[in-house]
């Protein structure tokens, strides 16, 4: 029965995807992307991936829409109309896409069926991870254990990629500090959604709860779905909500750009430092067992610290990216 639910959701997703590509109005495309993100999160949940669904919820529902709308506000909202004739190049495009689609569908016939217990994924690695999480790390959430401990190198790489992307956006768009210093102070009219009284009051009411939820997800990540990536995104979303309500200047005066840069670098450094601490205490890079007398307790400490590093970096990067886009809009 749940398989049928999944099929229904995925069919809706396919329709949404086609509508996204078909429409010429980019604003509509972004709205439909919001729906697609909700459908994807629901599908993740049906496929037993609660952590991934939480990540998609934190990222797709808020931050992704905000970024795309910011880019649309600064460019144009519509695709330019092109003459509709079946030229050779458009035939070629349809041909290539069709052929590749057929190849991919053909390749799926070798895939193990959905949920098959004899699939290679389930063969030896999954039981090993589940067993070892119980024995070596002793936390309920195997995803957090794999993310932070067994595949710590991998996660360090991902955090560095997020950090690098954030630095890249700041290089491309600037931190906005120079234009703000030179330009006139923003008029009242230009500062957030001040005229919408009800949303503004309610938004201010909700921001503390979102922040609280962010911290809960951060520190509860070992026991339930959650962890640093999700918590960073949720905290960034609360700051972005504040910036939307009160104007970007206010948000920047609460968390200045310097602090954001320190968060971006500091979180990544914290992750690396925990790894180096493992070497200093006489074991391997990112081996947390030596952080405490008791190896299991050491693992707990290591996971807690690096999840904090991840959360700080992700929150810093996402808020910085938002400010970089917003500063361009008000300049």
């Amino acid at each position, binding site marked *: 029965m749940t*398989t049928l639910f999944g*099929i229904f959701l995925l069919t809706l997703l*396919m329709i949404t*995807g086609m509508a*996204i*590509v078909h429409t010429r109005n*980019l604003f509509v495309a*972004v709205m439909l*992307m919001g729906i697609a*993100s909700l459908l*994807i999160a629901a599908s*993740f949940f049906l496929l*037993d*991936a*609660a*952590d991934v669904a939480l*990540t998609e919820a934190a*990222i797709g529902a808020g*931050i*992704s829409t905000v970024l*795309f709308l910011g*880019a649309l506000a600064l*460019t144009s909202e519509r*695709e330019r109309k092109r003459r509709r004739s079946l030229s050779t190049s458009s035939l070629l*495009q349809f041909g290539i*896409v069709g052929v*590749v689609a057929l190849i991919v*569908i053909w390749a*799926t016939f070798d*895939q193990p*069926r*959905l*949920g*098959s*217990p004899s699939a290679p994924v*389930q063969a030896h690695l*999954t039981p090993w*991870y589940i067993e070892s999480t*119980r024995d070596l790390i002793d936390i*309920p*959430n*195997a*995803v957090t254990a*794999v*993310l932070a401990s067994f595949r710590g190198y*991998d996660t360090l790489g*991902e955090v560095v*990629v*997020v950090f690098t*992307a954030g630095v*890249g*956006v700041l290089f*491309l*768009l600037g931190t906005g500090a120079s234009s703000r210093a030179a330009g006139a102070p923003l008029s009242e009219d230009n500062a957030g959604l001040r005229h919408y009284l009800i949303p503004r009051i309610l938004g201010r009411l909700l921001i503390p709860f979102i922040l609280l939820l962010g911290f809960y997800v951060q520190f509860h990540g070992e026991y339930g779905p959650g*962890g640093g*990536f999700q918590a960073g995104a949720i905290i960034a979303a609360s700051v972005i909500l504040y910036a939307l309500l009160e104007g970007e200047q206010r948000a920047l005066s609460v968390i200045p750009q310097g602090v954001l840069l320190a968060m971006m670098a500091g979180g990544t450094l914290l992750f690396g430092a925990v790894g180096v601490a493992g070497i200093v205490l006489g074991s391997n890079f990112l081996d947390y067992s030596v952080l405490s007398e008791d190896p299991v307790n050491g693992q707990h400490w290591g996971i807690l610290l690096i999840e904090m590093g991840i959360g700080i970096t*992700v929150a810093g*990067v*996402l808020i910085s*990216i938002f400010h970089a886009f917003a500063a361009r809009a008000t300049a």
Partner: protein
Amino acid sequence: MDILGLYHYWIFAVLLMTGFFAIVAKPNLVKKLIGLSLFQSAVFLCYITMGKIEGGTAPIMGEGAELFSSPLPQVLILTAIVVSISTTALGLGLVLRIKDEYGSIEEDEIQGQDQP
């Protein structure tokens, strides 16, 4: 049951190609990035589907849970989602700079300006 078991993968193939079509055929750069995110989503779903096990539950141990789906694909995709939003932001930043330089975000117009 065989057909239903593969249906998920077919949807991903179609979604993958829908995104790919936007990347190849649409001249608008923002639309290309939207297509790229669709493409990424299809890959994410494909990975998560592979980790699912019949009758299992999410790999978070609790009372009454015996059989767990694979945590490994979930870890890979969890980080990939955050990386994908960062890289999409980087792409959008590039688009904004291109708009500054060329005054357009349509691919053919930009190429037209490059060839005198």
